[in-house]
């Protein structure tokens, strides 16, 4: 796809917007004409340039683009989009405010149910949620032509922050009750804010030296700038939430100690999945094989991309093979390019259609030069005498019958193995549950995969202990974690009100 500059996109949008607003004022704008408004393209950094820097790729809509895109919304009475949203953002209402130019009213509407709009606008898989249900996309028979709800959400969230209009939500008078929130990712942040609002004292525990969970160690700067996460967390501290970094619940103190000795009235466990899967094939421990977690943590949280300042080293690669087809695989592949790899390949068992990654991330990866090898899976990794990766053996696959997930399952073609040269292998096959907290907490019920079992209100088998996010869901998304956090906070607030 040809790259268009932000200036060009803005000029085009301005011209169209003026015509449209004139028609609107005259009352002659028909729904058909609305549907004919071209979907606004997200301005982005030039692919050639951005593949070598860590700055954000998507630059955000201009005001004219946002208003024009908002005009594409038909304001459906039944609001199918809202049903597609895990936290039920009042989508038609906030878009309606953008149509009127009331950006502050728009962001306030979103914030009624979503605490992290600047984050969600960037990382939510909208094409599988709100935008999947959009009437405009359905009418145009192309999901990619649905109203860009996520980009509009991001626009108003960024606008508010840039205008300096963000204010912490009001906090009720102190209740004297204390809540421990374990894990400072999206689920924990949501719980911390919702519980603090009710006047309860909240301590947010984080094992790393910085809060934010996957939003700071996993999702790269070029997709979610750290300053955005920092701003959200600063808001929490302004609400009175205390953040304890370098604190591993289970080791530094156990969950029981927090509840029985340290005076916490309730606890929320949002520690994430956090135990990377490896390939389970010969050679997986060779030098040059990394979990995507490790590779991305070195690059993001530890800033290894800045070799002159960061003390954390990153492996020098020429040809990188990333195994997996999700967002994390896309992040790792695109990061590898930015760290100077000559070639970056994604190895995926199925085809592009079945990839769980966001459509936009796949498109960005392709534009930047990542090569996709579909219907392939490694059978072993080959090393040299120093134990370093020199190649992978790949097996070819074909698509068979649909499996339980509804996706056509990959079937291995016997005898199709061949050698694929590479010096680095990044494994992005998801995470299993980290057993640490469970091992050190007596009576916390988990399923066979080690995920914490919860009831409808996110309550665990232990009194006063709630859980949510990836430690309950397995590997999921920021927005689903937030949805669970919201439920848990509601239950915790109810419990503490009754106490």
């Amino acid at each position, binding site marked *: 796809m040809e790259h268009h500059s932000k200036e060009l996109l803005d000029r085009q949008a301005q011209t169209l917007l003026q015509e449209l607003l004139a028609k609107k004022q005259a009352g002659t704008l028909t729904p058909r004409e609305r549907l004919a408004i071209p979907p606004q393209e997200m301005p982005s950094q030039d692919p050639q340039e951005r593949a070598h820097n860590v700055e954000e790729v998507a630059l955000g809509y201009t005001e004219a683009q946002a208003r024009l895109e908002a005009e594409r919304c038909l304001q459906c009475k039944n609001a199918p989009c809202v049903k597609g949203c895990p936290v039920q953002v009042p989508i038609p209402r906030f878009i309606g405010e953008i149509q009127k130019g009331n950006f502050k009213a728009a962001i306030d509407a979103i914030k009624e149910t979503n605490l992290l709009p600047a984050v969600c606008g960037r990382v939510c898989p909208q094409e599988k949620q709100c935008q999947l249900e959009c009437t405009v996309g359905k009418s145009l028979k192309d999901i990619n032509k649905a109203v860009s709800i996520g980009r509009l959400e991001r626009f108003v969230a960024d606008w508010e922050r840039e205008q300096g209009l963000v204010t912490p939500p009001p906090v009720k008078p102190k209740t004297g009750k204390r809540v421990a929130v374990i894990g400072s990712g999206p689920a924990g942040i949501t719980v911390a804010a919702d519980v603090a609002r009710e006047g309860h004292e909240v301590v947010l525990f984080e094992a790393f*030296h910085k809060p934010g969970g996957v939003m700071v160690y996993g999702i790269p700067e070029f997709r979610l700038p750290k300053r955005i996460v920092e701003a959200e967390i600063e808001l929490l501290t302004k609400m009175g939430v205390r953040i304890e970094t*370098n604190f591993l619940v289970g*080791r*530094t103190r156990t969950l029981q100690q927090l509840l029985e000795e340290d005076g916490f009235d309730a606890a929320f466990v949002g520690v994430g999945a956090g135990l990377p899967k490896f390939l389970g094939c010969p050679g997986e421990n060779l030098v040059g094989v990394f979990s995507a977690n490790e590779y991305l943590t070195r690059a993001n949280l530890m800033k290894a991309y800045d070799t002159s300042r960061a003390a954390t*080293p990153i492996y020098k690669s020429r040809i990188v093979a990333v195994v997996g087809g999700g967002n994390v695989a896309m992040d790792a592949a695109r990061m590898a390019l930015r760290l100077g790899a000559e070639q970056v390949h994604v190895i995926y068992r199925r085809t592009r259609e079945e990839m769980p990654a966001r459509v936009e991330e796949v498109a960005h990866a392709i534009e930047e030069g990542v090569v996709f090898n579909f219907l392939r899976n490694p059978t072993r990794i080959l090393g040299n005498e120093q*134990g370093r990766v020199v190649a992978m053996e790949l097996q070819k696959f074909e698509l068979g019958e649909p499996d339980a997930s509804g996706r056509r399952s990959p079937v291995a073609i016997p005898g199709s193995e061949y050698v694929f040269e590479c010096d680095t292998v990044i494994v992005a096959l998801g995470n299993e549950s980290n057993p640490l907290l469970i091992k050190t907490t007596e009576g916390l019920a988990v399923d066979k995969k080690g995920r914490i079992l919860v009831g409808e209100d996110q309550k665990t088998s232990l009194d006063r202990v709630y859980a949510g996010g990836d430690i309950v869901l397995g590997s999921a998304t920021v927005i689903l974690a937030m949805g669970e956090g919201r439920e848990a906070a509601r239950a915790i607030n109810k419990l503490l009100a009754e106490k």
Partner: protein
Amino acid sequence: MKGRFPLNRIIRKKQLSAEVFEIEVEAPLIAQNRKAGQFVIVQIDSEWGERIPLTIADADPKRGTITMVFQTVGASTHRLGAKQEGDFVENILGPLGNPTHIERFGRVVCVGGGIGVAPLHPIAQAMKAAGNYLIVIIGARTKDLVIFEDRMRAIADELIIVTDDGSYGRKALVTEPLKEYCEKSPPPDLAVAIGPPIMMKFCAETTRPFKVPTVVSLNTIMIDGTGMCGGCRVSVGGETKFVCVDGPEFDGHLVDFDNMMQRLRAYKEREDQDHHKCHLELQIEQLPAGGSR
């Protein structure tokens, strides 16, 4: 974004040898909950620092302090070594890893090489307290590098010191006295070996024919220390294990030491560069003041 009181102040620092330092740091929660065999992750500064695992050599829950012994090998340990009493270490996470399994085994031989003697100390202490007959073997390249001799002498029923160059104790590798103990009747009921990987490998090889169970404590490359990155993984009995959450102690007879040593060299190039740079900087600092500024 720090907690309510300043943590991690260095209250005591001692240079044990040219490149080995001992520091006692205020970390009350870690001091209270840590057990023998556990470790911490240390980071000098939150923005650009590296997270490195360090073993806990001792702890005083009353004073709320932990003691760490480290050798200045990379950029981070050099920076840590340059800190003085009263300075702070920005981040310390712990205690991490599983505690050592302590019970009354009978005769336990504890083998420590180089700075491995430091993490061995709390384990030896706990073994002694559990009623074991404690044999300690301390090994070092040369006399100046022997550490914790007095502390070990205070708890050991038998103490043997060996040096590579014979400048102190017996001129031998730790495996020699270890083998002699294995040949005795009865042989030790358990061996614990902590030191450089190559030493642990050969200790395990020494005890293997005698079927003396041998515990080794591994110190691999880590970032988070909580199981999230998998950078620390090792192959144990053909299975992939994470040193941070499954270890740090494993059955020495099952560890693939060759693979582990290769993995430890993953960033060798960068480390050598940093080490060289650090020494240059150190030399510059030690130049007489005044002169040509």
